[in-house]
């Protein structure tokens, strides 16, 4: 008698595993051939140059001030964007979660509507709104609040503004999902026991919404790190983000190795951020599956 026949449930398990693997095969094939292989090739280009291994592409991170200044500016923008989207997104999610179903659908639709408009179109819309002769500046001027137009665009401010606008849904949606699951009985109980509204909020609601906050912050932060069109169009040439450094290395200097190394380092940064975040909340929750 073999063990496999002695244990029919185990045999069944194994068959099911095989079946699952078979079902997963097409997806795995796509991921391996279209994601893993190109990424390995990308990384390979940064260490293999002119028929030999080299670390020169990574040395530049230590020696070239442009590199770390670009990463510094990118991370600075990401921090600002993340904090502002949290401040703006939290009340929206709170209201959407507190409202009855049909009203919350309306609020979420309003959050999502701009989300379906092309990033490029929205960048130009900001250009029209914020430029020197734009609507905002001329309104302020007509109101007598300013004499000379404010520089709202073609700088880091304009870039941050447009990025926040684009990424706000990524903050609101995970927050909403988390808040919706907080049992209203808990806050009611807190209130009935004599807690003031602010006390109930800070001691009960806020801690329970923390997973949603972390999920939203990680998503927004990581997505900001890869922004390209927005800083390119609204940064006025001064805002220089990592993705632009990659494109310049290919288009201007034709240095694919350098471009690859920058992508690899940025990717490692993203992995690290996810790893750190997963210490706080499980990875699945960041991606919103649970």
């Amino acid at each position: 008698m073999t063990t496999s026949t002695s244990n029919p449930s185990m045999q069944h398990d194994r068959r099911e595993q095989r079946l699952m693997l078979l079902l997963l095969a097409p997806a795995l094939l796509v991921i391996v051939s279209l994601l893993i292989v190109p990424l390995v090739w990308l990384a390979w280009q940064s260490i293999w140059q002119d028929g030999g291994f080299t670390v020169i592409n990574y040395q530049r991170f230590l020696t070239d001030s442009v590199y770390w200044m670009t990463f510094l500016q990118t991370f600075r923008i990401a921090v600002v964007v993340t904090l502002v989207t949290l401040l703006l997104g939290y009340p929206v999610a709170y209201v959407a979660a507190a409202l009855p179903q049909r009203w919350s659908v309306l609020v979420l639709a309003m959050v999502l509507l701009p989300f379906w408009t092309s990033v490029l179109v929205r960048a130009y819309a900001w250009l029209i709104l914020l430029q020197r002769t734009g609507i905002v500046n001329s309104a302020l001027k007509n109101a007598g609040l300013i004499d000379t137009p404010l520089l709202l665009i073609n700088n880091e401010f304009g870039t941050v503004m447009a990025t926040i606008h684009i990424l706000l849904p990524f903050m609101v949606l995970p927050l909403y999902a988390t808040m919706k699951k907080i049992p209203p009985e808990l806050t009611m109980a807190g209130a009935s026991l004599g807690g003031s509204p602010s006390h109930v909020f800070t001691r009960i609601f806020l801690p329970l919404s923390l997973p949603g906050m972390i999920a939203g912050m990680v998503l927004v932060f990581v997505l900001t790190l890869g922004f390209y069109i927005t800083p390119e169009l609204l940064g006025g040439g001064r805002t220089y983000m990592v993705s632009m450094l990659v494109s310049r290395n290919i288009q201007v200097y034709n240095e694919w190795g350098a471009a690859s190394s920058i992508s690899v380092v940025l990717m490692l940064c993203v992995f690290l951020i996810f790893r750190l975040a997963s210490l706080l909340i499980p990875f699945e929750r960041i991606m919103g599956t649970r």
Partner: protein
Amino acid sequence: MILKFSTLVLSASAIAFSAGIASAEQITFVSQGGAYQEAQTKAILDPVAKLLGITVNQDSAPDAWPVIKTQTATGKPIWDVIDTPTQDCIRGGQQGMIEPLDFSKIPNAEKMPAEYKSAYSVAYEFYSSVLAYNKDKFGEKPPQTWADFWDVKKFPGTRALRNHPLATLEAALLADGVPADKLYPLDVDRAFKKLEEIKPYVTVWWTSGAQSAQLLADGEVDMEMAWNGRVTAVAKEGAPISYTFNQGFLQYTSLCILKGAPNLETAVKFVNAAMTPEIQANFPAYIDYGPGNPEAYKTGKISAERAAEMPSSPENAAKQVLVSDEWWSSPAGEEAQKRWASFIQQ
């Protein structure tokens, strides 16, 4: 009778066969797309295809340089002839990605000035980086030189420059008093030092031609360095914009052939035909960029008024500085390009 009929069929098929060969001769031509490539299709590509009886397939790449590298790296490029900034042809040639040109097979380029040609390229069309300004802002006394552009007291207003050192470093040196004929080799340190002066007054460092046009049209900047074709397009739409060719930077894109091009022989024939003065003279009829072959101005096809708007007309060319692609392809030029990124960031 039967025999005669079969010879008839045979000869007919032979004719069809040779005709098939003739129409099979083709090349793939690549330019930068958009209105510019459309204009070329009418001005140059269609007439050349008709003249040679070949098929000209087209492709476009706003920035051909990285594609040149990837295509030639495989040893089997798809493109034959490219119209690209001359620098790409020269540095591409030095790096073994561009075929050297045999000028004995390109007689149409014979009378062209030596500085319009290199071992790998021949000037195809001219454009100019000019000083453009808002007429409403400056009225009777607009800025006319780069020294004026740098003079923020006499000419207050917002400014824009291209986010690229080419022509920008040259402008800084002219503003600093370097004579136009002594620009090259560029004093890069001096140029960057002069640029630091104007940097706080530059609101935008533009990256695309479309962006430079939008800045002028919307009144976002009062003066900027921009490509003449973009400026005239904005002015034609009614914006109060003007420009001067004075101290403009004359640049040209060149035709060059990819190393190992699939249709090398036809490609050389194409280049020669594209440089025909009569065909080159078609450029001004479709776009505000000037013919690469100055002989085109002698064909009588370009009116005096139109010539005055062309960056490469002898009269306008004399007011301008010819950008040295040779210098920009040299190690010093490459170094200046790398230094640009850190200049912009600080």
